[in-house]
């Protein structure tokens, strides 16, 4: 079997799809899987133009994107492939940031904070009077959409004076280099860089909860535990057998792929559902 599988979209989901692609290549060396990171929004734009076979997404497809795909005649399936515990991090050198409430996060990141909330003691009077350095995803990112929706109450509502990058590695490097920095991204980027970073526990009213596979799966890490999706195009699956085979592989090995990518695997119920849906899509 040979051919190319073109994937683009969320940088959060990229490690999963890349891991899947590499593992799949061991079984089918003739199939090349290329994974871009234009962001969830950017990925959907390309997907709904028919330019990609699969769209990676760290949030469900939005209404206007559904419309765009319908207009272009692009039909798809929504497959949940893993769970993410969206992690808020600071540098390992930081001493005072251990737990933040969702209100404090909203104070820090809301659109009204722009230009005004510039020192840590404005977020919590117990914090020192040090300059705030913020890093985070840009506006094309599903992580951005999800975070702003959950924390600031409205998707896309955020201050803009921070280091924005679709490349989560930039966030990792930035936060780890400065003791007063804070950033947020998908769980895997924290796991991969645990020595340089510290995960902040989130208190949404029931006490401080740290992100982990358990707290994400049992639901205690709210509101930042979220599903991760891939959206394969039906046309690609039907016309290209290597794409169908890749989807089957993804569904059957979702736990292993999640572990390799250092994400949180689906629980049993979710895994069965994924395999059923994939089976329906590919006809296997």
């Amino acid at each position, binding site marked *: 079997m040979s051919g190319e599988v073109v994937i683009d979209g969320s940088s959060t989901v990229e*490690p999963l799809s890349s891991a899947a692609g*590499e593992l799949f290549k061991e079984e089918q060396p003739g199939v090349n899987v290329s994974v871009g990171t234009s962001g969830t929004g950017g990925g959907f734009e390309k997907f709904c133009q028919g330019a990609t076979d699969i769209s990676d997404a760290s949030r469900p497809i939005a209404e206007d994107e559904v419309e765009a795909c319908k207009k272009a005649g692009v039909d798809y399936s929504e497959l949940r492939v893993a769970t993410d515990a969206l992690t808020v991090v600071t540098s390992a050198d930081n001493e005072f940031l251990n737990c933040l409430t969702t209100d404090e996060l909203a104070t820090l990141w809301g659109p009204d904070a722009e230009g005004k909330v510039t020192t840590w003691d404005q977020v919590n009077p117990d914090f020192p009077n040090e300059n705030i350095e913020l890093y985070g995803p840009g506006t094309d990112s599903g992580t951005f959409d999800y975070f702003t929706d959950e924390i600031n109450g409205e998707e896309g509502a955020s201050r803009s004076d921070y280091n924005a990058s679709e*490349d989560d590695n930039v966030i990792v490097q930035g936060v780890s280099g400065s003791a007063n920095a804070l950033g947020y991204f998908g769980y895997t980027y924290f796991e991969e860089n645990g020595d340089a970073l510290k995960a902040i526990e989130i208190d949404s009213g029931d006490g401080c909860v740290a992100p982990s596979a358990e707290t994400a799966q049992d639901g205690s890490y709210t509101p930042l535990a979220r599903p991760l999706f891939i959206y394969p195009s039906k046309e690609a699956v039907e016309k290209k057998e290597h794409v169908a085979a890749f989807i089957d592989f993804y569904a059957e090995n979702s736990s292993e792929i999640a572990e390799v990518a250092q994400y949180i695997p689906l629980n049993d119920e979710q895994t069965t559902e994924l395999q059923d849906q994939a089976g329906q899509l590919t006809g296997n």
Partner: protein
Amino acid sequence: MATIGAVATAPLRAGRAGERSGTSIGFLVALWAALAFALVCLATLLVTAFIDGYPRLDGALFTRYSSRVIPETAGARAAILGSMMVIVTTALMAIPLGVAAAVYLEEFADPRRWFNKLIEVNLQNLAAVPAIVYGMLTAGFALTVGLPRRVVLSGAIALALLILPVIIITTREALRSVPAEIRQGSLALGATPLQTVWRQTLPSALPGVATGTILALSRALGEAAPLLLLGGLVFVTYDPNGLMSGFTTLPIQIFSWTGQPQVEFRQVASAAIIVLLGLLLVMNALAIVIRNRYQRHW
């Protein structure tokens, strides 16, 4: 023109005493320090790259593809092959066009006509335009013509446009250095100007042209900005298989790996840097050898 500085009203320290004055020595030390600083920077850069990257100068670097999940054995195979393919394509486009343009401008064009003066100034400008603008030009061109942006051909077009002014300028200088007698002799014997160029002038200028071309290509080898603009950072894990294939190059791969914080990626980035610098060293050495051995001194 220059004038000798005003004769000082105070008596000048003459002779050797003048060279020994405090300020003179201070000045000389400052100059040494400047040179030393430049050399130290160069040395530090090379040494850090070498120390970081040496452990990864293994077979895997050349035979394996980049990996998202197993950075310890990530390799630059796609990047090396991509670089080669892109450079060859770039050379095939840029060299004939550049040499042809230089031949016209140097041998046939009347330097007094406004059209040719315009081209002259234009070339000097183009040689200094930022590389990323060439990427934007090619992106616009590709869009108009319907060419996909993320393919080898588009990347080669961007690089060819980038180095074209340099090739034209260096070829012109090489042609200029061929003495008029060669041309006149050929014409006197009945050759047309075009035949003169093809059979006499150009072959005589060949070492200079070759040197300039190789140096221009080595610049293209190291460029990443225009290609980034065209292709984005798609994670490429396959060999490029044709002009319309997706690709990555060594500088893009280095850029991508450098951006990743894990130590293993830093290491493999430095290893790739060593490979890239090695390739550039070979190309530049080749250019210098050609210049020294074959350059005719008239």
